[in-house]
Each structure stands twice: as C-alpha cells, then as structure tokens.
C-alpha cells in the first residue's frame, strides 16, 4: 500500500493525494465550497448489564485495561494533549502495546510534543504505523524525513473533532488522562494532585470510541464532580502514580516576551486593533497564551484601562494574566479550551464566569454558528507567510515539520485575523513568494504585522480605509518583502523530494496541501 497516491491539483493550486493510507480523500475545493457529510461514527452500543452494578470499573493497571479493551493490531488509539510537554500517559500506552507484541497501531493524539520522542522507537519497530495529529518537535522531524510507515495527517483542533464525530476516523480505544476520577469514570482536569484545566479535546473521543479508559493519579469517591467526562461513557478506570508533570504544561506559554522586537510587533497589533475601531466596549477576542499573544493582550489591557473599555469575553488558553484582567473588571467572561497555570485552573474551577468550552462549540465546522466566527479579532503566529497572505504554521522554510496546526485554521474564521510575525528569523525571510506549506489560505488572513511594517490584505478595503490616517507603518506586503530580501539576500529553495510524508487537512475535511520529504543534507 502506498502512503499517498493519485495526486491532483486542488483549488489552492497544490498537488495533493486523493488516496491516503489506502483510503479515499477529497482535495480542497475552496473556502466554503465543500460541506462535509456527517456519517456518524456508529460506536459499539453496549447495555448497562455488561458493566458492574456497583459502578466500579477499576482495573488493576493500564496493561490490563488495554487487554480488556481488546487492543489488537491495526487499531486506532486516541489521547489528549492537555498535559502538553509533560504528558506521561501516551508513552505508557505504546510501551505496553510493544510489550504485548501489537503492531501497526494508528495514534490519534490531539497533539504530540517533544516528550513523546520515545514513540519514535515504536514507529521504527512497527508498533505504531503512523500518527494522525499535530507533531511538535522530534516526531515531526522523524516524519519529515519520510521514516514513518504511514502518511502523517495533520488536522486542526476543530478538524480533528469533526473527523472523529463524522466517522472519518474511528477510534478503537480512547485513553483519557484525568487529574481526578472516580471508580465509575466520572472525571475532570481541575481537581486532584496534578490539575491541568478542561478536558475539552477528549469529549468527542469518549462519545465515539469503542472503548474508553480513564487514567488518573487522584482517585476520588463517587461522584467526581465536575464531570467533564461522564462515567457512562467510560469502560475502565486505571490509577497510576503520576499522569504528567504540570510544570511542563506552562513552559514558555505564560510569560510575556522580553524580546524588544516581538514586543514592538505585539504593540503594533494592539495599535492596529485600536486604529481599526475594533477595540470597543463589548469586544470579544482571543487572548491566547504564548509570548507575543500575551504581550498583545498586555498592550490591549493598557488601552482598555485608558479608554474605559470592557470586553464581553476573552478566549484563552487563559493564564494568570487573563484571570487578573477579569478580576479587575476588564472582561465579563473567559472561555477556555486549555488553561495554563494553577491560578487560571482555580479560576476555571471556582469562577462561574470562567467557562470551559468544548472544541465543538468554538471550532467545529459543523457547529451551528461556530464561536470563532464571532470573535472580533484573533492574533496568531506563523512560521511563514507569503505575498498572497497565505500562511504556514507547521513546517519551517526548510520543509521540516516541527509544529502542529492547533486552532490556527479554526481561528481564521474570526472577523479580523492578524498574523504577528518577525519579517525574518536569523537570516531567513519569513515573507515568501509562496509558503512552503499552505495551512491558512490567504483569503482568510486579514493583516500581517511585522517589525518592519503592517500589511493589510487588499480584500479588506474596510480595514485599509479605517487605518489610513492612523500613522501606523502600513505598507504593501511586497514592499516589506523587498526590504527584507535586501537585508537577508534571496535564499535558495529548500531541497524537498517529491515523496509525500504528511498532509494538511482543511477544516471541512478536504486536503489542502502535501508536506514533502526533506532530503538529508
């Protein structure tokens, strides 16, 4: 079986496969040109008589649970990434699978991180056939070099939720790490020894998987409430010593950047939002974690205080910074799909105005409204952008895949999407003629803010008009590119082979672009 076969040129002009890992897929047709069918995933429907009357589903260990779940060759296992780079559970699952001699598993994480590097061994030995999900760091690098047996498949957060709910990806066993759970599987991420926040990513997993295992390091008496995961969706409960290291959830996400250039970019984003008339009472906006995003919120906060503006809602991943803003009365609500740091987690648990939000509601293409669309402004980062406002966030200019899509594509639906990027990194220009990998179609990118100028998508005449006398350095994107090319020189094209190693899915389930194998230099 070929990893990828029968390539065609899609509506974005990219060559994409129509057969991936043996299954038929649909090439990208254009923004809002394709409506995915909801086939339903038809999970096995059990009855209560198959479960203990006393509700006690505890089994002695994870190995036993996986055995009882009927784990066998070729199955699909899903996990979540709420522990980010501090997750212990995913590695345990595949170590056990290896011990049991199981082969050709498909891993469907909501994202993978450098802490999952040990799974490279399982990919080499054939325990894991391929990964469908964001690959950050070493796994992405491994996949980029064409070493994975199957084709990598990258979906946005909303896209993953949709694919599972639509029955495009069937989960055999969902393994859910929960910081607190009871014997019957009611579980959450806000109580226990190592809380991490909401378990938003797994909600579709437990509804659609054949078997669900909850793994916790803090078993509490029934009922474990709040019960974001309902025991009635759970087959087995396992307790282990530690499910993860909460310290590593926050690394690099909760501190405002100190880089003067990135601060300048963040400040320009804030000034742009103000100049464009977006910053007004009742604003709803995404205020995510990460150095530049946080800095943006920091500058917006000063403006809000100065102009006596209050937001109606801010969407996280929230941090202490956002919580402080709510406590100071600068927003009525915080919505959170992920939460960073103990202060934010306590707020989510204890403050009814700090609302855990499901991936379906905010990001899913099937949601009857989709909250991302209602956001007044969202600021995102990128690895590359191009003169047509297309953007890339998964590969570097050398073609190596080192990041996931996350909510990036889903956020593009906001009323104003701003990409905050340096115009070059080291010597490598960030503004290209054409992005290496297409993740964000330029149609949906409104503004690109760099330290050398702000470029507005010509399609957004309203923003151009609103900011024309703002005194901000608004330039043609080609002008910024030219300036950068003069500083850096024109880079040679990266050496990429024709061989596909992964694909990028668009939020509607069609195939947007192909990631090619990086030649070893």
């Amino acid at each position, binding site marked *: 079986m070929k990893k990828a076969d029968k390539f065609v040129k899609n509506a974005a002009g990219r060559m994409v496969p129509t057969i991936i890992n043996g299954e038929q897929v649909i090439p990208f047709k254009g923004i809002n040109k394709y409506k995915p069918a909801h086939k339903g995933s038809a999970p096995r429907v059990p009855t209560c008589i198959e479960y203990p009357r006393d509700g006690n589903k505890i089994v002695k260990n994870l190995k036993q649970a996986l055995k009882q779940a009927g784990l066998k060759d070729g199955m699909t296992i899903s996990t979540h990434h709420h522990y980010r780079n501090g997750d212990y559970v995913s590695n345990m699952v595949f170590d056990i699978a290896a011990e049991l001699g199981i082969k050709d598993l498909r891993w469907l994480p909501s994202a993978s991180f450098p802490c999952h590097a040990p799974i490279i061994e399982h990919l080499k030995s054939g325990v894991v056939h391929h990964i469908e999900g964001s690959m950050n760091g070493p796994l992405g690098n491994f996949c980029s070099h064409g070493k994975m047996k199957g084709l990598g498949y990258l979906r946005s957060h909303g896209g993953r939720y949709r694919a599972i709910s639509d029955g495009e990806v069937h989960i055999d066993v969902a393994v859910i790490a929960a910081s607190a759970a009871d014997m019957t599987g009611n579980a959450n991420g806000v109580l226990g020894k190592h809380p991490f926040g909401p378990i938003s990513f797994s909600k579709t997993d437990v509804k659609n998987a054949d078997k669900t295992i909850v793994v916790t390091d803090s078993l509490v008496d029934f009922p474990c409430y709040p019960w974001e995961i309902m025991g009635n969706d759970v087959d087995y409960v396992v307790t282990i010593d530690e499910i993860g290291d909460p310290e590593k959830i926050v690394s690099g996400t909760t501190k405002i950047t100190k880089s*003067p*250039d990135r*601060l*300048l970019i963040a400040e320009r984003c804030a000034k742009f939002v103000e100049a464009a008339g977006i910053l007004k009472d009742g604003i709803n906006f995404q205020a995510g974690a990460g150095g530049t995003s946080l800095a943006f919120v920091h500058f917006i906060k000063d403006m809000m205080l100065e102009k006596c503006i209050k937001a109606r809602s801010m969407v996280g991943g929230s941090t202490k910074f956002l919580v402080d803003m709510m406590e100071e009365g600068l927003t009525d609500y915080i919505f959170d799909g992920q939460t960073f740091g103990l202060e934010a987690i306590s707020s989510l648990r204890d403050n009814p105005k700090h609302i855990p939000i499901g991936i379906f509601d905010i990001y899913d293409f099937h949601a009857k409204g989709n909250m991302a669309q209602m956001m007044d402004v969202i600021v995102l980062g990128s690895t590359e952008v191009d003169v047509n406002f297309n953007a890339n966030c998964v590969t570097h*200019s*050398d073609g190596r895949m080192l990041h996931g899509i996350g909510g990036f594509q889903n956020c593009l639906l906001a009323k104003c999407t701003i990409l905050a990027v340096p115009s070059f*990194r*080291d*010597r*490598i220009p960030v503004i290209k003629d054409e992005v290496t990998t297409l993740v964000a179609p330029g149609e949906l990118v409104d503004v690109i803010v760099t*330290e*050398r100028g702000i470029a507005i998508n010509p399609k957004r005449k309203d923003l151009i008009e609103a900011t024309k006398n703002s*005194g901000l350095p608004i330039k043609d994107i080609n002008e910024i590119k030219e300036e950068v090319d003069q*500083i*850096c*020189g024109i*880079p*040679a094209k*990266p*050496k990429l082979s024709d061989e596909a190693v992964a694909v990028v899915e668009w939020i509607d389930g069609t195939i947007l672009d192909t990631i090619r194998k990086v030649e070893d*230099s």
Partner: protein
Amino acid sequence: MEKIGSAGNYGKKVRSDCKATLQLTKSGGLDIQLISKVEDYFGKHIISLAKEELKFFGIKNAKLKLEDRGALDFVITARIEAAIKQIVETNKEFLLPIIDQNTDQTSKQRYRRSRLYLPGNTPKLALNAGIHKPDGIILDLEDSVAISKKKEAAILVRNALRNVNFYGAERMVRINQLPLGLKDLDLIVPHNVNLILVPKCEHAKQIETVNNRIKELNNQERNIWLMPIIESALGVINSYEIASSRNVVALAIGLEDYTADINTQRTDDGRESFFARSQIVNSARAAGIQPIDSVFSDVNDMQALKDNVKISKSLGFHGMGCIHPRQILVIHQGFAPTSEEIEKAKAIVDAYNEAKEKGEGVVSLGSKMIDPPVVKRALQTLKMSGGNK
C-alpha cells in the same frame, strides 16, 4: 605550526553572528568548511563570498572554518577580515557597497533625546535597533567589548556603519578611552559615522587630539560631531572648556564611573550626582550644546525610568542614554516639548512661511530676527510633538 586567526562568536545562544577560524597553508588552495543553520539557503553564497574575500587579501592557500548562526554578509566578512588581520600584516579593507541610507549627514541641532547603546561586537542587536526609532544608535567599542575582542569589534562596527539600515537614527560610535580610542578612529571615520562619543573625557586637549585625528582621516570633509562623556570629578570641573571645543554638539555624563570617582554609590534619588549633573547642564547650555543624562539601568522598571526622566528634564537635560529599546518611547515622551514650546515653535514656523510667501529674505517674529537654524529647530519641535502622542 602555522598561526591561527579566529574572530566572532558561535554557540547555541548566539544569533546573527559567525565565528571564522583561519589557518594559512603552504599548498592545496582554499579549503572552506561551513557549518551553518542557513546552509540550505545561503551556503553557496557564503562560500563564494568567503573565497572572494580571501583572494582580495591575497590569500591563496588556507583552511577557513566558518561556524555560522545566521550572520548577514557584513558580519561574515568582518569576522573573516578580523581573523586574517590576526595572522597577516595588511592595511587593506574588504568593504561591501555602502547602502544609500547610510550616507546622510546630521545637523548640529538635531534631537538627541535618546541614544541607544549597542554592544559593538554583538551584531544581533544592531540589526533591528533602528526600527525602535531612537534619535541615535551608539555602536559601542568601549565597556561592552572585552579587551581581547577590541580589534574584531572595530571591524564589525565599521561594516555596520556602512551596511545596517538604522532607519534615520544618527549613527554614533563610542570609541575606547584615549589613546586606544585614536586607533578606533582609523576604522570609523572614513565610513560615514555621524558622531563620536569620547569616554572618560577630562580635558579639552583630549577633544583637540580627537578632532585633529578626525581631520587627518576625514578626507570627504563630512560633519563628524563629538559627544564627550564626563565620568570623573576632574571632568566635571573642566566641563565648560570641553563643551566649548570644536565639533562638540552634546555633553553626556556617565554616572557609574563618576560616583565611583567621588567615592560614593549611585542611589535612586541621585542626590550624590546632583552637583555634577547640574554642572554638566550648565556647561553645555553655556556652550550652546545639548546636555545629555546618563543611562537608567533597570530595564524592567518603566515607572522608575519615567520618574528619572522627569527629574532629568527638570534639571535641564535634553535627553538621556538607553540600554534597551523599550526605554526609547518613555524617554521621548518624557523629554517631549511642552505645550509652551510647541506654541512658540508654531509661531516661528508661521512667521517663516509668511515671509517665504511674501518673498522676504529675512524672517522676523515681533521685533526679533529669526535665523534659519531656529526655524529648523522649531520645525523639529513640531515634528517631535506630533509623533509621540
């Protein structure tokens, strides 16, 4: 064994720099080894550039190792040149074409509210310094450069003066204390520097020495202004004489060394330096030049900086030094012209425009004649008041 020349920095945390290690050989031609994170994009270009440079210096047989962290051409060529000059006697200079933006001259009167210090041997900080819009940038060869790195830093600074776009900031260099600093002038003066800071200045004679050396080197007769830095008790005493010297446009004070010299410590309220700061302001104003305050070193405390600027302006200073780009705006706002100054400037500019319309050669406001530099200054005042809301 053949001698080895080596210049530049390489390491995990180093960015936009490269380390060149050169060893001359008897035969075998040029053997260039490149280790670079941008090799896929610029590898061929860097190697051909290195070859061109080695040939320029007449080197036919050598081993050159370039360990690169994304350095631009002006950095790579500076590092190679510095490595060569450690082992080969030569007066030649390998220069890339100067960029158009770096050929301008500055006026005596221009604003010098903020001057951003950039360590002369750290190219990364120079690249984007101009986008933060300081009035001036200082490529520093003195305290921020280790003794063993002085030579390579001077070559790098020379190249930066030619090839880095500072987006309109005045290009300043702080040379080393004399007599070492005189050697720095050889490299700096012919390459469009706008202003030279003379550290630890104590006598007008030192300024004369610098002026004379500049004159010998400055064959294009460009304006090269001086900003002496007073950093000792003796310097404070002689400050008027120094301020009145030729080409001096501003007088700065360096409080770290000054407080050490008078045997005390710097404090937040600065009582210990009140006399010196006032004296500097007085000497500078008496000589008709700009008094410039010392840097404020806590880059995280913007409120304290704001308070400091307030005091500084009230003492009569025109501007101060900064060591972090985020300090620039606070300083500009703090030293921004007051509404009175703005009104006065408006009146001057209006009078000038009226005279121009009428075709009158002489501009007057009330009973006063207005000289062209005053008009220029007034225009600048209006510009500054508009740009820093």
